[in-house]
């Protein structure tokens, strides 16, 4: 117990020393699919860090909402986890494996287990729904098969199945840019699911959608994560959506975690502290 406490304290201080496997197992029991310790990111052009000393862990099937005002570092935090943004310090374990400070090939291998959903969907508009969804398999294919787009029959069947479950069955061969925003985001979620991820990162997935569509997307994300035991991290600027769909909330302000606890325990005072604004000003956006 004492050993665990010491190691945990070291981790939270963000020591650059790499943990030994034994230490890692003590600090991070395996049910934690994602471990973030002492994470810090300072962009080259900025003086102040965008994320400073963030430590938390997420278990299988846990749905975590990351809330905070814009510029709080939510997006940076998410992008550090799959190293789309290079962390300045600290470490991140994906299923017990270090993703920080490892070579690019290892990063690509770990990224396959991390699905990502974007605010602007990031689909290739000129390609069909099916082609966009199949992109989720590229990480598992050899470079040659990937370059030529030779997806396996098994993967294609899987894609059709998930698309049908997400009520996109009739749009398989529609061009992605012909879909509505809600449909596009469903395609985005299915693309991420094709990776068979153990972690799903959602960066403002409903910020460009109207309330009704937003609800459908949040329900879809919650359902698939519970069904497949995917650990999910959702950036949201709407407190109401976070309160409704997540199990746990991490509140960020100025790059720091100011709240980390069950969604049920999130008090109005705490929300006000996260956003630095009184509650009545926060409720207007609504969902």
């Amino acid at each position, binding site marked *: 117990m004492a050993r665990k406490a010491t190691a945990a304290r070291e981790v939270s201080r963000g020591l650059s020393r790499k943990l030994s496997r034994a230490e890692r197992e003590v600090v991070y029991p395996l049910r934690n699919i994602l471990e973030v310790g002492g994470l810090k990111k300072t962009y080259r052009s900025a003086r102040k860090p965008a994320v400073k000393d963030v430590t938390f862990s997420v278990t299988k099937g846990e749905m975590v909402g990351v809330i905070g005002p814009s510029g709080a570092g939510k997006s940076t935090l998410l992008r550090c986890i*799959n190293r*789309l943004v290079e962390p300045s310090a600290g470490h991140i374990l994906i299923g017990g494996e270090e993703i920080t400070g490892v070579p690019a090939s290892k990063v*690509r*291998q*770990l*990224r*396959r287990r*991390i*699905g*990502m959903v*974007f605010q*602007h969907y*990031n*689909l*290739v*508009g*000129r*390609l069909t729904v099916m*082609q966009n969804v199949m*992109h*989720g398999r*590229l*990480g*598992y*294919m050899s*470079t040659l098969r*990937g*370059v*030529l*787009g030779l997806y396996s029959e098994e993967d294609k069947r899987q894609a059709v199945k998930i698309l049908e479950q997400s009520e996109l069955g009739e749009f398989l061969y529609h061009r992605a840019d012909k879909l509505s925003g809600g449909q596009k985001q469903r395609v985005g979620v299915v*693309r*991420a699911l094709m*990776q068979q991820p153990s972690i799903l990162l959602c960066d403002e997935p409903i910020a460009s959608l109207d309330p009704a569509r937003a609800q459908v997307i949040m329900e879809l994300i919650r359902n698939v994560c519970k069904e497949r035991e995917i650990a999910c991290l959702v950036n949201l600027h709407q407190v109401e959506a976070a309160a409704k769909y997540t199990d746990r909330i991490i509140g960020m302000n100025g790059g720091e975690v100011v709240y980390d606890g069950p969604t049920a325990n999130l008090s109005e005072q705490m929300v006000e502290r996260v956003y630095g604004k009184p509650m009545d000003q926060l409720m207007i956006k609504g969902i």
Partner: protein
Amino acid sequence: MESRRAARTFLYVLFALFVISTAFTKFNPIDALLAQGEFWNFIFTDFIPPRIQRLGALFTAVKQTLYMAIGATGVSAVLSLILGFLGTPAICRFRLVGALVRGFASLLRNIPVLVWAFILVAAFGIGTAVGVVSLVISTVGELTRYFIETLDEIAGENIEALEATGAGMLPVITQAIVPAAMPSFIAWFLYCLELNIRASTILGMVGAGGIGLLMTGYIKQYNYGAASTAIIAVAAIIIGANLLTDYLRRVIL
């Protein structure tokens, strides 16, 4: 108030520059009007009617001109595609390579195609191959720059989404970036094809073969009737090229 005064000053300066430049070139509008008679006389007695002679040679020259332009644009497109990927910072992360590619393209682009043809004719002699090479040189300069601009615009979002799945850069290029960039690529290709057809008609004037060579030959022999036929052929080629590229744009894009 401030901006209006600035605009007025700008207009005065522009007018002054216009007067000075015109004076410097000794261009006199009144002289130009008076000399009209001589000019029209030359056109009507020497150039009209067009004399049709050696039709075979004319057709060969037209064919050479078109082949030069189409061949050169095709070769340039392939080369520029490769250079375009290497020159886009979001795709090729070796900054030095990108800077070299962009500098190289800019060097090729900023020397006009006629100058390239002139240099190459001096070095290798008269011929259509020299015409093709000089067109390729300047077109690679142009197209590489347009392709880099296109890729830069498209790269951000698409690369992020696909890299996040763990895909390597080559599959990302073929599966997402190329399909997304295709309409722009084709549009720029057609634009350069049009430019090259225009350019190849005059390239012959410095000895690079094709209709231009035939035309300057006739003019030097004072065979203005035949030259006039060649000029009509040039106009026909350019109009035809415009119609063709417009049609392709409508059909493909």
